[in-house]
């Protein structure tokens, strides 16, 4: 058997297929295929671009920080004004959440009654806002809900809006709440008129307490505390260190301050009218009563020194 020579195989291969006749419409089919490919190219590219854009958007939302999950509502407008000064700027009332972003903390201090009251605002960031955190409008809370954040000064009902409309009708302290525009009143005797008060969150429960000056004696100033109850009523507190006393004489002195959810009450005695032994007791407001926290501390205060006077009220705007 002789091996198959290349030229032999060439001839056999050509003979096997040379009589094949392709279909006559081959060219038309190719042209149709090219047109079909062109028609699909643009939509295919567009679809690919859309898919890429969707993936990019998904990736963006997947990695973007989420700053809050609670439902927020727009703040109700504040209608009241005290004195000639306007209240805190609108932006602060509508754009500053209690804790998420820097909050403007207006504190109310009224010495000349409603007509002479002034409203001051100080930018007091409570917690630095994360970069890119959205603006959050104040949350309107139900009266029986439990706010979880510290109320800013001036905010009685914890809705993030200053409650400016506070007055005294001779027998009762009357407050109009900003979150529902309803009026609440509590009977309170001996309130000094014109009103002198501040609203600050003593217990960090998200609602501000009202510290209102009541009649004092012997050159001292006293303050009662009124708080908004979960049921929406106002209640004057009475136990514990209340009333809070501020003032000094040559033999004794008293003062208080509040910070960190505690009220520090100071009382001092002096033999010479210059050096006082000052005892400081911390109180925590829980419900409607104050309870002492920790041990009392005693320090010495010399009136001739430059140390801060312990016999003052440093709470809210007092």
């Amino acid at each position, binding site marked *: 058997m002789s091996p198959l020579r290349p030229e032999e195989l060439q001839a*056999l291969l050509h003979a096997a297929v040379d009589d094949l006749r392709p279909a006559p419409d081959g060219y038309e089919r190719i042209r149709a295929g090219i047109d079909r490919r062109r028609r699909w190219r643009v939509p295919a590219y567009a679809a690919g671009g859309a898919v890429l854009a969707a993936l990019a958007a998904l990736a963006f939302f997947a990695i973007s920080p989420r700053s809050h999950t609670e439902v927020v509502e727009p703040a109700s407008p504040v209608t009241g004004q005290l004195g000639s000064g306007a209240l805190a700027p609108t932006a602060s009332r509508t754009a500053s959440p209690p804790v998420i972003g820097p909050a403007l903390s207006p504190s109310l201090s009224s010495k000349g009654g409603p007509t002479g009251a002034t409203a001051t605002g100080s930018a007091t960031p409570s917690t630095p806002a994360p970069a890119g955190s959205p603006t959050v409008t104040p949350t309107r809370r139900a009266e029986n809900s439990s706010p979880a954040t510290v109320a800013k000064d001036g905010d009685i009902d914890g809705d993030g809006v200053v409650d400016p409309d506070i007055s005294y009708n001779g027998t009762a302290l009357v407050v109009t709440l900003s979150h529902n525009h309803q009026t609440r009143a509590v009977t309170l005797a001996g309130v000094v008129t014109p009103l002198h008060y501040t609203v600050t969150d003593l217990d960090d429960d998200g609602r501000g307490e009202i510290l209102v000056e009541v009649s004092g004696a012997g050159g001292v100033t006293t303050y009662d505390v009124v708080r908004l109850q979960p049921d929406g009523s106002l209640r004057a507190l009475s136990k514990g260190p209340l009333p809070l006393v501020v003032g000094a004489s040559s033999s004794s002195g008293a003062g208080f301050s509040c910070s960190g959810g505690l009220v520090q009450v100071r009382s001092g005695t002096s033999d010479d009218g210059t050096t006082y032994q000052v005892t400081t007791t911390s109180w925590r407001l829980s419900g409607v009563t104050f309870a002492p926290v920790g041990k009392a501390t005693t320090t010495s205060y010399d009136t001739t020194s430059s140390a801060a006077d312990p016999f003052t009220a440093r709470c809210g705007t007092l």
Partner: protein
Amino acid sequence: MYARSAAVRSDVDRDADAALTALYSEHYRSLIRLAALLLDDIGQCEEVVQDAYIRVHAAWGRLDDRDKALAYLRQTVVNLARSTLRRRLVALKHAPKPMPDAASAEEGAYARVERDAVVAALRELPRRQREAVVLRYYADMSEADAASVMGCSVGSVKAYTSRGLASLGTKLEGLR
């Protein structure tokens, strides 16, 4: 910028259309025959060759050397023929078992084609040997060109061709 790129694209399209027409006139029939030696269904041969023309036309603007358009076409035909055979093999593997007295699916497929002893002998060769023999002795390509189309070394082409030639010599003994 957009108008300029559109004009350039339009030139490429016109160029591709003209080249397509020329390549079709000169080589379509020979490419069909080349495919017929690699495949067994003349309808599929036409589809493979037409698809190769469409692909080369679409890639015309990206071709490095347009003088080698025929080489690109041949390579595309070989690649598409391989894909077709591979798909058919998978289909055969998953086809239901034939009845004992019925013709097999493979036989049924082969029955559709016009066959002669040479084509039948070619189809019995392993794919690589078949491609090497067809490219070398039907398409008249050099060993280097055949190696380029097959994606293997020149030495491999030599080996495949030698084995294929020996095998075909045995099978076609009666025709000589």
